[in-house]
């Protein structure tokens, strides 16, 4: 078991899968010679050569189209969209073509491809390079959606995404790239669709994703140490498929649900989970369902402003206290 950064775990997963299967190809802007603008893919070009690791022009529709055409003819492409905000320039390929073609053709073809992308705020990049768009993806039938919070999960879930027979949008959270954690050296694959309970608790279930997970964990620690409140923390990890079983079991135990979303408020993934719990677990609830999200605004750039709007540990603690007290 090595200590790796989240950034290096991305490399570890891709290298593991490219070694295993020569049908895995990788394309994107500045991913080959330069090793990626977030340095997640350094060395892949050298190891796997320029037929398998390819720099592209700034043509996101071509990148995603190429991945789609390759996937439907037997290959397993990984495409990179540099910042997740840029999904907007190729959304037709993603949401209308890749997501729907298997269904529309009565199951004639599959799309074993991964689109990986740097997601989320906290880097003072401003409103067009900081969005959390996992809820855009979740809203589209036919897409799987994965967003890990630890280096170990990055390796295991990215490997599983590459092996998955369906299209996966894989979100790497920018603010986590430099974080470190244990990553198995050997082949490591974590099945999609399993949430992880990272803190067990009795009073309230805090459900979080990606960069919000460490904040929720810290909040749970504070709640426990300073306030005697026992909170479980569930790292959703994969929005589609969604591990409702783990969430429902935990909430039925605690009786209270708080979701922590980095995406702006309206139609976030937390709303979906809230609606499931409000329908299926209504009689087990001991109090309102609380959603903590970034307000429904574009993200500001200045550090002071950005920090003020992203859900913070303090805000989680405060909102949970309000709910539980």
């Amino acid at each position, binding site marked *: 078991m090595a200590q790796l950064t989240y950034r290096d775990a991305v490399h570890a997963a891709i290298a593991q899968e490219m070694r295993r299967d020569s049908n895995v*190809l990788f394309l994107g802007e500045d991913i080959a010679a330069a090793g990626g603008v977030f340095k997640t893919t350094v060395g892949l070009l050298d190891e796997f050569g320029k*037929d398998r690791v*390819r720099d*592209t*022009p700034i*043509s*996101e*529709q*071509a*990148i*995603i*189209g*190429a*991945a*789609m*055409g*390759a*996937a*439907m*003819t*037997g*290959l397993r*492409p990984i495409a990179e969209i540099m910042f997740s905000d840029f999904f907007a320039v190729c959304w*037709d*390929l993603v949401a*209308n*073509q890749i997501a729907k*073609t*298997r*269904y*529309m*053709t*009565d*199951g*004639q*073809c*599959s799309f*074993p491809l991964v689109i990986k992308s740097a997601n989320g705020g906290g880097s003072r990049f401003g409103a067009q390079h900081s969005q959390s768009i996992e809820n855009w993806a979740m809203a589209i*039938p*036919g897409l799987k959606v994965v967003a890990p919070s630890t280096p170990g999960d990055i390796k295991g879930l990215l490997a599983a995404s590459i092996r998955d*027979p*369906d299209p996966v949008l894989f979100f790497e959270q920018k603010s986590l790239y430099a974080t470190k954690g244990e990553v198995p050296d050997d082949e490591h694959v974590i099945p999609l*669709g399993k949430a992880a309970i990272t803190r067990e608790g009795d009073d309230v279930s805090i459900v979080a994703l990606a960069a919000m997970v460490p904040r929720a964990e810290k909040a749970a620690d504070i709640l426990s140490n300073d306030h005697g409140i026992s909170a479980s923390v569930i790292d959703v990890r994969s929005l*589609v*498929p*969604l*591990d*409702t*079983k783990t969430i429902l079991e935990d909430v039925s135990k605690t009786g209270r649900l708080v979701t922590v979303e980095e995406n702006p408020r309206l139609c976030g993934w937390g709303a979906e989970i809230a609606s*499931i719990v409000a329908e299926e677990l209504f009689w087990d609830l001991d109090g309102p369902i609380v959603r903590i999200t970034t307000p429904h605004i574009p993200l500001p750039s200045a550090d002071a402003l950005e920090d003020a709007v992203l859900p913070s540990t303090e805000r989680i603690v405060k909102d949970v206290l309000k709910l539980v007290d």
Partner: protein
Amino acid sequence: MAKYKPKLNPEIRLNLYRTMSECRALEQRAYDLFMQNLIKGTSHLALGQEAVASGFGNAMREDDYTFCTYRGHNHTYVRGVSMTSILGELMGRECGLLRGKGGSMHLMSMDHGALGSYAIIGAHLPIAAGAAWSAQYRGTQQAAVCFFGDGTTNIGAFHEALNFAVIWKLPVVFVCENNLYMEYTAISDVTAVANPAADRASAYNLDPILIDGNDADVVYETAMTALNKAREGEGPSLIEAKTYRHGGHSRADPGKYRPDEEVEEWKKRDPLDVYRKRLLKLGIDAKSIEKIDAETEAKIDEATEIAKNSNPPPLDIADTDVWADGSSTWRN
């Protein structure tokens, strides 16, 4: 580049004719079935444009790929897909190619290399490039052929796909069927150049190729050259084939925005009439032609009968096959 010289022997010529005749019958029947309200939703016919589908269909290798648009009945048919399954799909029946899940605009048959009909303008150009990339990587010498309309040359995906295919030298043939109109708007009203595809070839370091899309021989020969170029590793081609649709854009459209004389002019250049005359002139006897027409007639009648008698699809297929495991399950 090794120059390929296609040989237009009588057998090929009769095949070109037969394919056009079958396409014509298929879509004319589709039209009749609308009129009888047996086809719901919309449909986009290519009556008058059969020479393009026929020329390419006959020139392609069985394992080549085609990508086409909502106006793709013919392009799908020429790959070997049955009339029954096409009509069945248009009618939303169980015997349909997609059992009613896709409809008229989304015909696809992986088994025949017909890799889909795409209903949002431009999308399939980069996808075709992707399939060509796959063939290149796998070293199979397959080519991908991508059909689209004149209107499609003004959308962003066209530009991205062309540049991408050229820099990666992909074995893909882009075929612009210039039928002079988008939906109801003349392409010349909204395009900076006279020939929307050919006049842009140089922007991708490609040769301009502008052909008579109503002449099946010309299409066939052009197709052969471009496919051969692709297989030889010489990269993509962009072909503009001038043609015309006899009817409106879609079911709902009588096509009244077009001057009568223009329609008349082009109907005189009906690709089937033109070709029938040429065959006779070349000494092919009228009997062989009549035989083809009769066989076509029998074929379409039989297909219609089967499709009409096919049941609606079972309702439970509506929530299958979102995922490769056959399900649509998004939770446990």
